């Protein structure tokens, strides 16, 4: 019996002890209520004391949360629509405010934060054109947004760690025209390449033709010169040889010309009075 009594006593003691303490994790923030009134909210992680039944404790996740907003259209300075996808990193700053304003509900907190951030985005995007948004001003926008949204978020008990613009896209109808422009640009490049190729090719061909013509012409010139030299030399030789007796040369050359002229059987009408026929009719002169 005594054993049982001791065991029950120990158990009761342990239970009461358990009800008198609570733990706060490394990732948590806690609020202690005294019959509904907040008495303490700045607990370090670890083991803490509370009165059973009178005190009540609520814990919240103190890690960095993500508010991932849906892609939203914004107008830029040049009145173009862009679709922006962004996210906000935040954590609970003042847990009492967080509890009282958004009831400690992270979803509700995200909803409220989304409105704040969208508003800030709209303001900043309206001041800039697409080029600035996409390339140069990303960091600036981030800094301005954090700075502007921080006090508003603090009203919700939230602390903004970072605001990042993930995507800045053009709406589908605009992006298709971007694609068309890119295509046109490539086509321009392609044509340039092709026609430059044709240009170079034509130049090379023309040069080849020129070289051919020039080569042939030079060859013709040199050939004619050579022939002329030949003719000249031969003329000189003939003149020197035949000059010895012009009369005999004429005679000799005429004879060979006759032979050549009549070599392919023509028709000849002769006079019997000619020298050749002097012995034709009579024996002696």
């Amino acid at each position, binding site marked *: 019996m*005594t054993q049982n009594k*001791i065991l029950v006593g120990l158990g009761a*003691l342990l239970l009461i*002890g*358990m009800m008198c*303490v609570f733990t706060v994790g*490394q990732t948590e923030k806690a609020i202690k209520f005294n019959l509904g009134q907040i008495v303490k909210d700045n607990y370090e992680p*670890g*083991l803490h004391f509370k009165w059973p039944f009178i005190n009540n404790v609520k814990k919240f996740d103190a*890690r*960095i949360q*993500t508010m*991932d907003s849906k892609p939203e259209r914004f107008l830029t300075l040049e009145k173009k629509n862009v679709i922006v996808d962004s996210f906000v*990193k935040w954590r609970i700053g003042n847990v009492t405010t967080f509890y009282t304003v958004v009831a400690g509900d992270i979803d509700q907190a995200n909803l409220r934060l989304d409105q704040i951030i969208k508003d800030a985005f709209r303001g900043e995007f309206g001041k800039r054109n697409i*080029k600035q948004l996409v390339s140069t001003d990303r960091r600036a926008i981030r800094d301005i947004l954090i700075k502007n949204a921080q006090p508003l978020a603090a009203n919700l008990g939230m602390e903004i*760690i*970072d605001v*990042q613009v*993930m*995507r800045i896209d053009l709406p589908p109808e605009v992006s*298709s025209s*971007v694609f068309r422009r*890119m295509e046109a640009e*490539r086509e321009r490049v*392609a044509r*340039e*390449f092709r026609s*430059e*190729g044709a240009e*170079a090719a034509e130049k*090379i*061909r023309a040069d*080849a033709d020129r070289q051919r013509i020039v*080569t*042939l012409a030079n*060859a013709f010139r040199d*050939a004619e010169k*050579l*022939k002329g030299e*030949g003719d000249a030399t*031969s003329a000189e*030789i003939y003149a020197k*040889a*035949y000059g*010895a*007796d012009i009369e005999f040369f004429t005679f*000799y050359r005429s*004879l060979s010309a*006759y032979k050549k*002229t009549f*070599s*392919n*059987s023509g*028709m*000849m*009408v*002769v*006079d019997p*009075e000619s020298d*050749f026929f002097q012995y034709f009719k009579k024996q002696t002169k």
Partner: protein
Amino acid sequence: MSWNEPGGDKKDPWSGRGDQKGPPDLDEAIRSLQEKLGKIFSGGNGGGGNGLPGGSAKSLGFIIGGALVLWGLSGFYIVDEGNHGVETRFGKYTTTTQSGLSWHLPAPIEHVDIVNVKQQRFIEVGYRTGSGEQSLGSVPKEALMLTKDENYVDVRLAVQYQVKDARDFIFNIVNPAATLKQVTESAQRGVVGSSNMDFVLTEGRSEIVTMIKKEIQDVMDNYKSGIQITSVNLQDAQPPEQVQNAFEDAIKAREDEQRLINEAEAYSNDVVPRARGAAARKLQEAEGYKEQVIAQAEGETTRFSKLFTEYSKAPDVTRKRLYIESMESVMAGTNTLMVDVKAGNNLLYLPLDKMIKPQQAAATVQSASVPQSTVDPLPQPSVVDEQPALRASTRGRDARGR
């Protein structure tokens, strides 16, 4: 709660390695158990209260003692190589243990989370390597991004990372992997957005990767995420699918340019040497002609000179001989018509065309210088003129021309 970090060990830390039993060096473990117990209970709240030396309750003491020993043993845990154990006491961080055997105060008091810090984890942005043999599947929503010159490019990244601080990794961010992905998307868009398309697609690849890596690391450090980016790999940077054809055509055009040039060069290489060849032929022919003409001249003149030497010795006879021989050979080769017109007729009609025809038909008939045979086939010439018009040497051609 995010202790089930992605890619890490999926074991629930509460029931994981915390209650490993069968310790090899029990003595040391018990000593540290005693130390820790002493520390706790001297601090104050001795909720358990194990005194009670009731003589009647010796067996009860044994039971409680046994329970305590078992409870104490459940505090042993083993941390594998490459892992770190993060211990918390009542939720508060106390220490990080290295690999090996360790002990912590058992269940309700202390707790350990084991994190793999050597494992290379990775995320994919812009594509998914399917679990099976699927090829790279593009995710256009993530992959397409605007460049500085307002073109789209298709970029696919793989980011590899490690846990550099297990404590930060566990305690600071709700979902570190998802956060890393968001940050990566943001960072790569920032970097690509400030570069031109050509730079991204060609020479700027490595530079862009370096910039993205730095940007991600900066932001993640700002979040105290405990993540170390080990590498950022640019899997692919391409023009988007929608304009792929145009880009390929541009590349083809570059090839076409080279092709056209090569073809022209081929033509040039064909034509110019041929022309050179033709030119060389022309020159050689001319050279040949020159040599030929000169040689001919020399030949002819030499012959003439030789003959002339003999001629000058006996001009008269040589001259006559030459003449007669020549005439002989001339007459022998032609049809000869002898016309003896002393009657003094003005015109002698010779139907030459009729005379030539039969002669052509029977060309072999050699009448030569025999006048009768020549005259025979001819009609009687009608003598009109009384002048001695025709000379012996008059050629047939001339007669026809009259």
